[in-house]
């Protein structure tokens, strides 16, 4: 947390006071961010190998299927993952960067 505090137009003191005041929220959010990061990495790593369905992601990552889908949906929203072709009763998902490359090729 080495960011330039002046960017937010708050003094160091104010920020310190805010950190103290919001300690529980910050702790909760930090834990959440760590979890997000782990799940995100697991999904991204799996998709870096090849496109995958939610059950395949679940199998590779150990994430519960609803969590895997939730993370895929979130990554899709921010343009990191794209939906790929249909595979039986599921869709495959792929990394956006690789999908773009594949299209160019």
């Amino acid at each position, binding site marked *: 947390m080495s*960011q330039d505090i002046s*960017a937010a137009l708050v003094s160091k003191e104010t920020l310190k006071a805010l950190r103290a005041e*919001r300690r529980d*929220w*910050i702790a909760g959010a930090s834990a959440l961010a760590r979890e997000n990061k782990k799940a995100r990495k697991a999904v991204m790593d799996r998709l870096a190998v090849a496109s995958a*369905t939610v059950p395949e992601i679940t199998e590779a990552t150990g994430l519960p*299927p609803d969590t895997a*889908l*939730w993370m895929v949906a*979130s990554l899709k929203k921010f343009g990191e993952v794209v939906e790929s072709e249909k595979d039986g009763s599921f869709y495959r998902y792929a990394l956006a960067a690789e999908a773009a490359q594949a299209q160019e090729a």
Partner: protein
Amino acid sequence: MDSSKNAVFDAVVIGGGIAGLQSALDLAGQGYKTAVVEKDASIGGKMIRLSKVFPTLDCASCITTPKMAAAAHHENITLYTWCDVQRVEKDATGVSVSMIQRPRYVDIDKCIGCRKCEYNCPVLVPDTEQGGFSGRKAIRIPFSNAIPQKALLDVENCMLCGKCADVCPTKAIRYDQKPEPRRIAAKTAILATGYELSSVTGKPQYGNGDIPNVIDSLQMERLLAPHGPYGRVLRPSDGMIPDSIAYVQCAGSRDASMGVSYCSRFCCMYAVKQAMLLSGSLPLADITIYYMDIRAFGKNYEQFYQNAKAMGIEFVKAKVASLDAGQGGAVTVRYEDQTGEGATSRDHDLVVLSMGVLPGFAPGGVCPVGLGPDGFIQSVLPKLSPSVTDLEGVFVAGVAAGPKDIVDTITEAGAAAMQAAKYLTALSGKAPGAANKESSHE
């Protein structure tokens, strides 16, 4: 956006959903200065969150966004979003609304809606704008068509890491923003406070919300919407394309023991509409609607219902007794079959509960307006002028006065604007002719 803390208007509209926007537009169109107070971070209400609307199957955005934009750009309309109304008082001089401007933690005069903060925020939390089916960041633009297109920080999920402030090109982040009291004075008010769906939690027969793949109707709207969480309809437990989808009608309506005793009025039609949309996007899926009576009463609604039947959507007259988690993510629907088979059950991949409609605003302690036994705002002239309440000069529009569909809501919003305009005219004595004596004479 008016930033002064005490502002004076001809009219104030509480609620920036489709009812409030229509009322505000109809007042502003006559030249009345009108404030719209919205509790959410964007105007648009429930309608902007819908996929398509019955019976025309227009996309909800195509109808709502122009009205939102028209209100946002109208010279006679001032929007107050992200505001909690504390008190609505009525005295001889008019209406006074006290409210708290909740902090967005963003300077909205500086924010340009570029979403850089959102992309860089490291915290993902379930996005209620998407039925919880995908994540949103702690700082974000509420949704793609939101007005205003301004970021909003959820401090309860913020780790104060400073990334958003770092990347903001206009230095708009304000971590230390505080709630600010505001006061609006007006001569008349329209209450257009809308509704909330009743919750599945506390309804053990429907699994209290613990059964996977049991969702409510607004969640299904998101699955069907163009900006939806998956971009298509998938089963939330595992992303499977559902082959069999069921609707449970009156899930919390028309039964006091289940939630509310009244009819929520528009659930039949949105279930039929969603079923039609589903049969379009999932042509192979079986769609079943468990219902007591199909109430397709509006203009072209019955024809819409008959079309749905002709498309092969199955309507089963039955009161659903309970839901249970079935095998492999399926949901078991237990019901009494009215064709003579008795108690029976069927498995579906996805079950949608048409939940009851509850008032969006509990005026107790906030506004001394009279309520009906159902908790919605009471009309004192339900036949001749349904928007008239027991508070002189305070009118009601839309679902705030009882469940109603969008068509009826928009019409009633226009009517409320008419009655408010008449009240203003009578006050100023500007227009010739009789003064407004509605509430005393009719």
